[in-house]
């Protein structure tokens, strides 16, 4: 029976592995951490319908049960190719031979320290969108690090995305709608809070996104300002002073808030570039992996028997990731059956 390696145990990897096991292949998931679910595991609710994230992860986990072998705490150190066989050297010292490999290494969040002017890790009340999710574990009002109830909050879009200065020209795609979702969740917990979103463009590309955006404005009174943040400083009372530009009016803007949320974008995962080099897969200017083409062969890489799915080949929403994973599984199936 052909053996397949799925590198990365996020939602993409889990879905690929499950579909391939359904097609009765022997599948190994190689996961560097000790939990499945990747980034989704850390999320509370998902846009646009507020589905609890754990529902998706649990469902995927249940599907995998007893069907797929999971090699936790493992990374690929070296890769070799012999005819149609792929040999992977893993960090636990073992060597595995596979007939096909699916790369689902996903993404990492942009390190907000690289935009030091936004004050992340300098001022405690500047947090990332991922850290804000932790506040949503319960329904209590959002408070600052000094235990003050947040009365005014600013969401900053495109932190580390569409920013040539940090070397990222690409759009991370999901942060716009995530900001709208999170703003609504804040409004539900702090009904009196003033909520500002400072965006470059609002890219409400999928179904129901526009509805959520409209709802945020009409129902929750969330204020959307097209503007760019230039710098954050801290006042004596530990509130944050923002200097921005309203890019529609072309005028500078100043605002004092209790909490700043940076909508950090996606970058290619830590070891993805090394992995791409080891497996001979080209990466784009944005460092995400390049499939043969982005229309009809978006899961096929230049190297035979190696496939890619999910955010390893660029930012995607969860729905898109799962669809991409299923399509990759089918590509693997046709590849192995035509050999």
């Amino acid at each position: 029976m052909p053996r397949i390696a799925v590198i990365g145990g996020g939602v993409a990897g889990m879905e690929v592995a499950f579909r391939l096991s359904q097609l009765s292949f022997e599948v190994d998931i190689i996961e560097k951490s000790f939990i499945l679910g990747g980034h989704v595991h850390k999320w509370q609710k998902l846009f646009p319908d507020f589905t609890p994230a754990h529902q998706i992860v649990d469902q995927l986990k249940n599907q995998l049960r007893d069907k797929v072998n999971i090699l936790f705490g493992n990374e690929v150190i070296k890769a070799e190719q012999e005819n149609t066989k792929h040999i992977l050297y893993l960090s636990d010292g073992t060597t595995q031979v596979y007939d096909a490999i699916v790369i689902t290494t996903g993404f990492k969040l942009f390190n907000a320290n690289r935009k030091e002017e936004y004050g992340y890790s300098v001022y405690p009340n500047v947090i990332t969108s991922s850290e804000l999710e932790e506040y949503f574990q319960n329904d209590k009002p959002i408070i600052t690090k000094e235990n003050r109830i947040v009365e005014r909050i600013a969401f900053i879009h495109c932190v580390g995305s569409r920013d040539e200065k940090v070397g990222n020209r690409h759009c991370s795609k999901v942060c716009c709608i995530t900001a709208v979702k999170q703003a609504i969740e804040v409004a539900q917990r702090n009904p009196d809070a003033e909520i500002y979103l400072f965006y470059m463009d609002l890219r409400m590309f999928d179904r129901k996104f526009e509805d959520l955006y409209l709802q945020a404005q009409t129902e929750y009174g969330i204020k959307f300002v097209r503007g760019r943040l230039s710098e954050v400083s801290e006042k004596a009372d530990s509130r944050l002073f923002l200097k921005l530009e309203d890019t529609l009016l072309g005028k500078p803007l100043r605002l004092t808030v209790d909490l700043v949320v940076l909508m950090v974008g996606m970058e290619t995962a830590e070891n993805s570039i090394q992995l791409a080099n080891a497996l001979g897969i080209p990466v784009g200017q944005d460092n995400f992996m390049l499939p043969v083409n982005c229309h009809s062969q978006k899961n096929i890489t230049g190297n035979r028997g190696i496939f890619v799915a999910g955010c390893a080949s660029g930012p995607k929403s969860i729905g898109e990731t799962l669809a991409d994973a299923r399509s990759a599984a089918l590509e693997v199936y046709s590849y192995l059956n035509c050999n």
Partner: protein
Amino acid sequence: MKFDWFVLPFLSGLSFVTVYTSVKFYRWINKLSRGEKALLKKYIFSRSIWTSIKEIFSESLFHLKIFKTHPLLGYMHASLAFGWFLLIVLGNIEVKFYSEYSINPPYVPIFLNFFEPTTAPNFFGRGFRFIMDFLLLIILSGVALAFFKRFVPSKFGMKQNMRHRWFDRIAIFSLWFIFPARLVAESLSASIYHNGSFLTNTLGKMMSFLPAETLLYPSWWAYSIILGIFFFALPFSRYMHIPTEVLLILMRNAGIRSRYFSHPYQEVETEACSRCGICIDSCQLTSIGYAIQPSYYLRTIRYNELHREITDNCLLCGRCVEACPVGIFSTDIRRHERTLQHEMRTVKFKFNQNKFSNTYTEVLYFAGCMTHLTPGIKKAMTTILEHSGYSWQILDEDENICCGRPLLLAGQISAANQVIIHTRTQIEKTRAKILVTSCPICYKTFKENYRLNMLIMHHSQFIDHLYTHNRIATQYRNVNVKYHDPCELGRGANIYVEPRRVIEQIANLLPSSSEKNKAPCCGGSLGNTMLQAEEKKLIAKRALSEMNLTSADLLVTACPLCLKTFSAVSSVSVKDLSQLVAENICEKIPNNAQKIHKAVETL
């Protein structure tokens, strides 16, 4: 009087150079303002002229600075310049043994072996022939090295050669051929008359199979023609630097500086550039493929070529100025030219008034716009100021005011002056004793353009001052630190000692091969408006590898712009000096500090 027709090419070439150079010199000096002329005149008739004469010997002839860059490169330049110089001087003395005239035409010493084929039969006669042979050998070794340098510049401490134009090549080749031609002519002469010494006599014997008598006269013609070609090419080629450098040294030591684009001093600088190419290696844009270094830049100015992109594509880091053996202030020329190109006289700023403090504090802290973009530094400085015991305030807390330097670097002088006047008013209103800034760019501007009646300190100096007056104390950490000298603080403001003293209070400071005036630029310079973000990143990466951080735990710098640029690409963690201090500051000031607490009065 001795004469032969073959001296004509040489003689006409020499006359041409003399006339041309004299006219050029006269024009340059004439173009100086009345004050500058007086300055030059006063200098030439003062006692300090001797320093210039010394410099002309050590730099124009002996090339001491190039020796310091690389000994072999220095030897190559010195053997040609100093060797040839001695050949001419000693040749002129030698003539005295043979000639009945006290004044001889200039071609006699050059072609002495033709005019005086028999060696004076005494010690001096043979001695001089020996010295002349020896000098010729030295020069020939220089020519050989120059030839090899074209192929293996790395052996001469250079990464690459200057790419010369065809006209310069003619001049170079004629220069190279002068000395072999002389060797051939003198050797042929020696093979007939035995009038040479160890070199020419030996070579003459080796050439005895040749019909020396038929070849001798044409070989003197060849030598003269090559000299003639060189002299005719000299004023239009790189070799114009030979006479011009002398004038440059005089003018520079007299205190004349270029004040605007096309100032006569700048024209002298332009022609004094020998295009030796040493600046090419010192420039960090070389490795990313830009030929914008002073050698190239000054050439485009000299030959009136289009070069707008070259003018703007420069970090203004000043490494080339430090490296230049001639001492050309090329960054000044760029700034003057930018002024010419970008000056917008019509701009009128409206300033936000009345938002600045009028209260008095001892210390006024000016963070600067770049520090606002690196709030870690501002926070660290706040901590340090809290511990300093001084009363203090931040001038640019809410309102961004600018020192004016970005506008100055872009050449927008009148716009910059508006900003400077506004900011100066705000600073003076506070009547502070010490103005502290975290940004070397602001520091340099406050120092040079503001005429403020208070102590101006960069924060590295201020922290050093706090240590010496026992106002702060820090814990010692056993970490290895490398310090990066920011361009504007180091080469720009000559502050090298204070930041190092501060680091040594806290950590183990590692030496570096490229530090102080040789430190690389981070690449984030405001002076360059042409580079793409990716290119700046590449420069930063290469600067880091040049500093070699393998043994360092931490890279410390003292400029917010350097911090920001390096943080983005460094694998070793990067901190500002103030952050290093603030993180290790002791809560309690040692007891004896109280006594010296009034140190501010001594300022």
